[in-house]
């Protein structure tokens, strides 16, 4: 379960729920378009995840987002696919933990 960066700061489960669901949507979207030529959208989504993951208490999302951005430079589709699977597992796992706590 993710915790906020600031210890004094607790994020409401509702907001975490929406955040994780949106990331799952993002991952689905990326997996669907990865074989198309529109890689710019994946780059943008990865960039956003890099920027917001840690703020919501999910440093792993920021870390994977950053790795995807790097792989985008080499257009390493295989590596990106692997990272998307890894991210998907992580987000689903976190989401399940959140639901369990609710």
């Amino acid at each position, binding site marked *: 379960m993710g915790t906020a960066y600031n210890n004094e700061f607790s994020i409401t489960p509702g907001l975490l729920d929406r*955040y994780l669901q949106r990331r799952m949507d993002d991952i689905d979207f990326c997996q669907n378009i990865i074989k198309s030529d529109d890689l710019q959208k994946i780059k943008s989504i990865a960039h956003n995840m890099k920027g917001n993951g840690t703020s919501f208490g999910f440093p792993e999302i920021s870390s994977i987002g950053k790795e995807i951005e790097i792989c985008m430079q080499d257009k390493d589709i295989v590596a990106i696919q692997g990272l998307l699977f890894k991210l998907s597992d992580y987000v689903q796992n976190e989401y399940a933990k959140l639901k369990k706590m609710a």
Partner: protein
Amino acid sequence: MKTQNNDPFKLLVIEDDPELIQLIESYYKPRGFDVDGFSDPLLAQESLMTGKKTYDVALVDLNLPHMTGIEFIKKFKVDYPHIPILLMTADTNIENAVEAIESGAYDYVVKPLHFQQLSLTLKRAVILKRIQDENKVLKETVDGRVSFDNYLFKSQKMQTVLDLAKRIANSTSTVLIYGESGTGKEVVARTIHKVGKYKDKPFIAINCSAIPENLLESELFGHAKGSFTGAFEKKIGLFEEAGDGILFLDEIGDLSLSLQAKLLRVLQDKKIKRVGENKYIDIDSRILAATHKNLKNEVKAGRFREDLYFRLNVIPVQIPPLRERKEDIIPLSQLFLRKFSTENGKELTFNKNALDYLCNLPWQGNVRELENMIERTAVLSPGPEIDVKDLPQLEDYERPDDDYRTLFLPLMARKKIPPLEEISNAYIAFIASQADKTKEQAASDLGIDRKTLYRKLLNLKTSSNADNFQNNKEELNGHRLQ
């Protein structure tokens, strides 16, 4: 965090990720912030254009729909230059940060957001904004003291004074500035200094009525060590201090006759002698003088040297009283209100009734009285809108005792207080001489019947003191205008 006037701190967030906006809200709202978030910059612009809300700081993401954060900042700074902006970016590329700051952002923060760090940056941005606001007010105040900016003076009468000040700024001639107390004689003097060839040279001002005569001589000319009791050190006088700049002698009409003689000598010879020294020192400063007195009358009354009067009155500049240039009352009032609002940590504005009311007050004390009144109002008014009821009421301006006191004080300064009959006669003659009054009206105003007025005027005409009376009449007239 609260603003200086204890209002919630207003934060504008423009970020394409709605969850991140909610995250920022959920961090800052419990901490007393008023947060408005927009995931679309166009919606933010639309909201800002309504003008219903202003912000203390804006937090703008680099990646936005419809435009980049940099583009948004460029547009935002045109319309809201006073609101500091922080750019958020997940990009560690320094070029974006540099571009953002060049576009007008105060600073940038790197995502993921570290809220404690962000709070510190926000706090710094707010302090900057506060300093900028205060600086703006100070600058306006200083500029107001040293120059006539258009927003300060709207009247044609003051524009004429400004034009004259500009025309004479590069001359070396002596200037004599006339104006009632509080009209801004020093403002004119400083403008002459600021706009002309003297602008990079010293401007030294002294109020001749504020310093006892024996000290004034030492102030103006300096003194040698041990030249009198208490002269422990050699002192450079203001003439020397002014160098090749400007020496402004305020209230020159209050200078004693003996100092008038010394000043005349200085103006003629361009040399001074320090008190207690025999050596003459060349001086090169330009003299600007000012008075609220009618110096012609002072000359007639024997209190001011005629030769000095002519020496000073090379270029006379007359500043009209505030009541004769009512167009200036509103811009001046608003300037002073901005200044004192900031000083008191308030955001105050006048409503229309208050401004109308201010325009119709007599302002015997001119701009200085207006400034003092607005300072008092800014301190006492709960705000944010100042109404007539928050301003001193008209009856406060109609206290005859105060008026008479102001009128009589110059007479008290004379060596011998004039006898009652002399003053009474001068007053009757003055009222009767008003061009807009018939003798019937004059008699009615004076509370005497018409026949009594005629009799008194006839007595005055045949009086052996007619000349003396005329002088006193003019003197009283002069004082009335002060």
